[in-house]
């Protein structure tokens, strides 16, 4: 993922939800999903199109968990540390992954392969502890299993 972006993509997101102030979060969701993150340039571009101050858009983009202002790795690993997963070792999994990938939580590995995130409950409490890699949720994960999962991605 690079900082490069197509203005067309921003335009299509604005068109989809309308150039209204209240559509900002939906538009940012769309950009986040398509581009992988919301960069400074994208915020500047969006500010002109929506006539909302840059500070406000950046405020929203940095406020909510759904948005990232930094480029993300090709794979996103989300370790759940919701209450149920925490009790079953979710935080140990996170520490283990930080160690294995040599990256801190919220960080991206140097080769831009993985971004490691801690999340609070994705609603899979019944199969905890869970680790979500891209779109796949893995349940009842152990440290042994999580290392294998990472190797499979490599």
């Amino acid at each position, binding site marked *: 993922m690079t900082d490069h972006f197509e203005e067309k993509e921003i335009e299509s997101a604005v068109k989809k939800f309308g150039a209204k102030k209240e559509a900002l*979060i939906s538009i940012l969701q769309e950009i986040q999903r398509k581009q992988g993150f919301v960069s400074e340039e994208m915020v500047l571009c969006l500010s002109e199109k929506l006539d909302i101050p840059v500070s406000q858009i950046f405020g929203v983009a940095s406020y909510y*968990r759904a948005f990232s202002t930094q480029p993300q790795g090709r794979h996103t690993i989300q370790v759940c540390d919701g*209450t149920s997963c925490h009790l079953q070792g979710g935080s140990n999994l996170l520490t283990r992954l930080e160690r294995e990938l040599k990256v801190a939580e919220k960080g991206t590995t140097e080769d831009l392969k993985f971004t490691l995130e801690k999340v*609070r409950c994705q609603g899979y409490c*019944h199969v*905890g502890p869970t680790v979500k890699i891209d779109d796949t949720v893995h349940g009842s994960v152990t*440290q042994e299993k999580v290392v294998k999962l990472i190797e499979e991605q490599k």
Partner: protein
Amino acid sequence: MMKISTKADLEAVREKGGDLLYPPYQRIMVGMATCCIARGADKVMSTLEAEVKKKGITASVVPVGCMGLCQSEPTVEVIQRGKPKVTYGPVSPEDVPDFIQAIVNEGVDKKRALFRTDSEYLLLQGESYRYITGAVPDAFKGIPEYSEIPTLKKQLKVILRNSGSINPESIEEYIARGGYFSLSKALRMKPEEVIEEVTRAGLRGRSGGGFLTGSKWLSCRKAEGAVKYVLCNASEGDPGIGMHKSILESDPHSILEGIIIGAYAIGAQAGYIYISSGYLLGVKRMEKAVEDAKASGLLGKNILNSGFDFTVVAKEGGGAYVCGESTALMASLEGRMGEPRPKYIHTAEKGLWESPTDLNNLETWANVPVIIGKGAQWYSKIGTAKSKGTKVISLSGNIKEPCLVEVPMGTLLKDIIEMGNGIVKDRKLKAIQIGGPAGGVLPAESASLPLDFDQLSQAGSNLGSGGLIVLDEKTCMVDVAKYFLTFLREESCGKCVPCREGLKKLIELMERMSLGIGTKEDLALMQELSLAMEKGSLCDLGKTAPHIFTSTLRYFKDEYEAHMDGKCPAGVCKDLVFYSIDSGICTVCGSCMRVCPVDAVVGEEKKVPSIDLKKCIKCGACVEVCEVEAIKA
């Protein structure tokens, strides 16, 4: 899609939907909520479709919502004319050919059958549908009946009445089970009568506060404003529960119907459904429900020829716990940062875009069609004196079979815990966490408390949105308190000082506890801070944040004292524990040596290994893998 303008039209759609629910051929249903999909239900579904086609069987393969049998997922149900409905699970894609063959040959696959249903009570119709025409066929006799299953027999499914039985993307199937008839009834009542009915039913908000829903509606109805809004909070918030997702994905129309009825009663023209960030399937199914309701004329202009106009939009949020707070949720809908504001002026008077606004939780809305359909009198018979109706409970934590259940208010907490088939590794119950981060921790003795808004709050917790987390004897209360406080600090919006700085300081002091260097003075300071936060914070996030500390201190003071002495009795706080292997228990299986990432478990072959404490990083991998619990902290 057929346009519905009269009750007769609704009845015609019910007929049509009935043919889908109980077709003359086989109906094979696969539980397809995201948690089921995480366990491979989508593959089971496509394999079933292919197999049915290959064998040339006339059958419909239908995706349905969550059946609530988390341990048996992927779950499949089969309906055949004149025979009991049978629930199967777990069914894997590899099982499918065998499974279909068994059903073709004998009508049932005994190997994978969980239970059978001979007849099913349809709540809104007030009558039962009999699956079997005569006696139970011989082939089905060995399978237990629905009512014989312990986790199922104590439940009362009002909110989850359709979950797992209908295709959530089919409005016809929803109508076939009595859906939208309550709307039709409500539109023939006066708005005030609808509010009166909801008030008499005693419905209280399912999001934590427990306000009387009818009173809330009435104040919004009375507020002056040309435009009024109704909102549905469908964002999960609390970590450790997955119930809103399940309801959204399993029965979106039940929420929608409640919202339309509420909007009519309040006099609102527009509504928003605010869904958790990342609940893509929930958003998709809700959007489909809104679209279908529009196409059928159940949303839009002149709904069911009543002259009432109403539209609703489903919106995905940005992901912030504080957006459970009404004013923050409204700011988020307006496209701003989700920061709360002081509520000198209630949102019922000035809410979304300064217009009168009513906000209710998703589960509260889903109760409304049942209250209107069955009447306040019927509804108010369920529950306790001041807590009416049922409650969906997400049971998780250190429990063998975590599940989603629905029970009448007043059910004892221990009876709910029993539905999870006991505690992991048969350990002892230590505490119950209920109500999420805004709630508290209750000791094991509290298991005899009933599910009741007021009794739980007297005990120092609150019902919250219904997450019940079981904590076993291996749980450290200082760690649990620190966990929730850290969660809240991350989620605090930072607008007001008591919450922002109070949480930061509380965690610093809590950190000292888990390092074993806390003092009595620290504890006193924490209590003082808690009081200041409760009194001085702007919104409920900050006001309730110290509950987790105060409740753990109230019931588990000895554990704080032990930490001050440098001991963590549960063996959780990393700085206070040292792992060792009990040679009396160890079976010398070698697993711990295999998984240790730093080779700290050392020993010779066929001998009990030992742990090199200089190398050990206390990651817990060995504890996790040891089947016999020989590794002690």
